[in-house]
């Protein structure tokens, strides 16, 4: 073969390889352009245009809400056939989903409908100007009255609504009555002083009185801190900011709680904490209603039936009976240029917050929602009791992570470890959180 032919073959091979490598990218980009079409997807169906909404959804697959929520979407599509169509994009990895939403928001291509779990993220997305303003939607009393008291006010940002509160976390304090009675504790504690007395008695029987953890996001201990903050500062403690002395006082209480917990609490994650409570190694625990199903299926025989529930404890005779109640998932919508599409989003939000649908979703999943339902309609007795106790509570208050910026929640576990290891004082613990808030 001549030298010039070799060169020609080399040149052709290189060009073919390069084109081949980029061919995939090229075609998908074209497809994407065709389907996304400046963020508005409309499908021709006869004479009228059907508005299609994209909804990357996490309530799919093995999620407890998947079946009933999926049915709700199908019912919506049937009811609005030819007018609106919600297309679910299944998202099974929540971290990947969060990354995807952030990327789409930052590039100005937010999905039509999506869920966000952190209020701090909603504030950030709203600041970027990529969320649909839902204020007029909630001004309609027929919509606004569907939600539990105060939850819409908590969701407002500078008087505007950029998200719809949906899944709600109601968090009781859970006691293993069998262990409590065995230790001679016949009444549930109503104050922190009574809790310490109960802890001393429980410790004497060889169980860990309290469940605590510092691993991951220190969820259980963060909830205990939230209850302590509520007891020390009252209903409006978060409005006063981290400078309020209640946060230091609550840190002292939290520090004392670690004297009554397991030796593996530092570094323990949810698996460890759950393991202790489910196996009756610890007696007092706090978590959301979603854990009830697991207590029933994974807990030792009789544990579920011996559960006793209560709201928060008082401190120095004040602020007892609080209930932790925070939105776990918000539904947001990407900013729309087309008013018809805004109407489609609102129609969907209206549809999925109808009371009978929420009751069905509650009963099927074990989760609770920001839409007000009558506790008598909830089939699970413990769940119904929690809803009732929360409704009758002296006051409800968000948990610490829900009320604070993301960075504060992220700083909490390591600050807690320093506090528990006596490397910092309760005052310094709060200062660490303040620094994170900056």
């Amino acid at each position, binding site marked *: 073969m001549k*030298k010039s032919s*070799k*060169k020609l073959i*080399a*040149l052709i*091979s*290189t*060009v073919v*390889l*390069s084109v081949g*490598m980029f061919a995939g990218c090229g075609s998908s980009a074209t497809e994407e352009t065709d389907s996304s079409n400046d963020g508005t997807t409309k499908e021709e169906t006869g004479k009228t245009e059907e508005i299609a909404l994209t909804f990357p959804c996490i309530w799919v697959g093995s999620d407890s809400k998947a079946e009933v929520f999926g049915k709700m979407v199908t019912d919506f599509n049937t009811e609005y056939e030819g007018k609106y169509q919600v297309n679910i994009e299944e998202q099974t990895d929540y971290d990947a989903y969060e990354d995807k939403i*952030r990327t789409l*928001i*930052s590039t100005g291509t937010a999905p039509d409908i999506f869920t966000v779990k952190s209020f701090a993220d909603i504030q*950030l*997305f709203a*600041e*970027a100007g990529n969320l649909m303003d839902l204020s007029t939607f909630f001004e309609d009393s027929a919509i606004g009255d569907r939600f539990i008291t105060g939850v819409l006010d908590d969701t407002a940002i500078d008087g505007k609504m950029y998200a719809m509160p949906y899944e709600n976390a109601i968090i009781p304090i859970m006691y293993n009555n069998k262990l409590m009675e065995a230790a001679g504790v016949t009444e549930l504690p109503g104050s922190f002083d009574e809790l310490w007395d109960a802890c001393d008695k429980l410790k004497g029987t060889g169980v860990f009185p309290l469940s605590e953890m*510092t*691993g*991951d996001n220190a969820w259980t201990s963060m909830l205990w801190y939230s209850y302590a903050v509520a007891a020390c500062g009252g209903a409006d403690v978060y409005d006063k900011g981290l400078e309020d002395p209640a946060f230091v006082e609550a840190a002292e209480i939290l520090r004392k709680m670690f004297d009554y917990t*397991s*030796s*593996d*609490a*530092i*570094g*323990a994650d949810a698996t*460890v904490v759950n393991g202790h409570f489910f196996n009756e*190694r610890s007696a007092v625990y706090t978590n959301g209603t979603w854990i009830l199903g697991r207590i029933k299926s994974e807990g030792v025989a009789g544990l579920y039936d011996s559960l006793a529930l209560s709201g928060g404890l008082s401190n120095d005779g004040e602020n007892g009976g609080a209930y932790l109640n925070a939105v776990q998932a918000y539904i947001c919508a990407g900013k729309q240029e087309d008013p018809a599409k805004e109407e489609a989003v609102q129609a969907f939000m209206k549809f999925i917050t109808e009371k009978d649908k929420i009751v069905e979703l509650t009963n099927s999943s074990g989760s609770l929602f920001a839409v007000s339902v009558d506790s008598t309609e909830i089939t699970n007795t413990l769940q119904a009791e929690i809803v009732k106790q929360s409704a009758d509570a002296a006051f409800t208050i968000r948990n610490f992570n829900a009320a604070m910026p*993301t*960075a504060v929640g*992220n700083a909490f*576990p*390591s600050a807690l*470890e*320093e506090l528990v*290891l006596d*490397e910092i004082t309760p005052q310094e613990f709060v200062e660490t959180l303040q620094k*994170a808030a900056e």
Partner: protein
Amino acid sequence: MKLRKGESLGVILFLAPALLLFVMFFIYPIFNVVGMSFFNWNGITDPVFSGFENYKDIFTDKVFIRSITNNVIWALAACCVQVPLALLMALILSRKPRFWQSFRTIYFLPQVISGIAIAMLWSAVFNSEFGMLNGLLKMLGLGKFATNWLGNPKTAFACVLIYGLFYIGYYMVIMMAGITNIDESYYEAAKVDGASPIQTAMHVTVPLIRYSVHTCITLAAIFGLRTFEQVYLLTNGGPANRTSLVVLYLYNQMRDNNYGGANASSVILIVVGAIVIVSIRKMFKFEED
């Protein structure tokens, strides 16, 4: 070898696709990281130029100082303990004692098992309530030494480090491959001179596999500097940031939506990595071909 006139075009064209991808996915991101380290950016709103503010913040952050210190300790331990351990195993197994193939497989096994599975295993070993280590201590009557190994600031870093040091199989295999390539005549000459097995290993084998040793030390140092998975899974940097590492630190910066700070810590890690690689290269002083 010098290229003949006219061949350069072909070489360039063949290299172009790979070079293009390398520039797109490695060189460009590095420049981007360096550039963004001078901005305050939450990942959503527009970045704001902040000069050296991010660098100032991380150098005054005690968690970052602890993280970089831990990384240096980790890299040193990898070079000074892990590689010599791997060399020792390679020297022993290359003499092909009984069951040497089984041992080679056993030592290499951690490399092919999921890090998550191994971390779960070690987590169970170190657990203070039902862990194997405390159980063993109690059984031996040393119960007073039982502790929350991963939750105790005095023991946590040593525990994650020890767990990391068990990954010797990779380096061992590289050095065994080097030993296999040594000409038999060197050993015969050593035998004629009456060298003991230890003398043969020290004066024949080790000098002849110095390139492999250099490769292993470089890799160990790099892996030590970029370690993340083991610490993230076992302690997540705790207790009280005692086991934090730079990659974990920058991951946490991203979780806090502080992408400027994350980029600045990445730049520092790149610089430290470059210094370490150059230092190791200088230390070995190889003659370039």
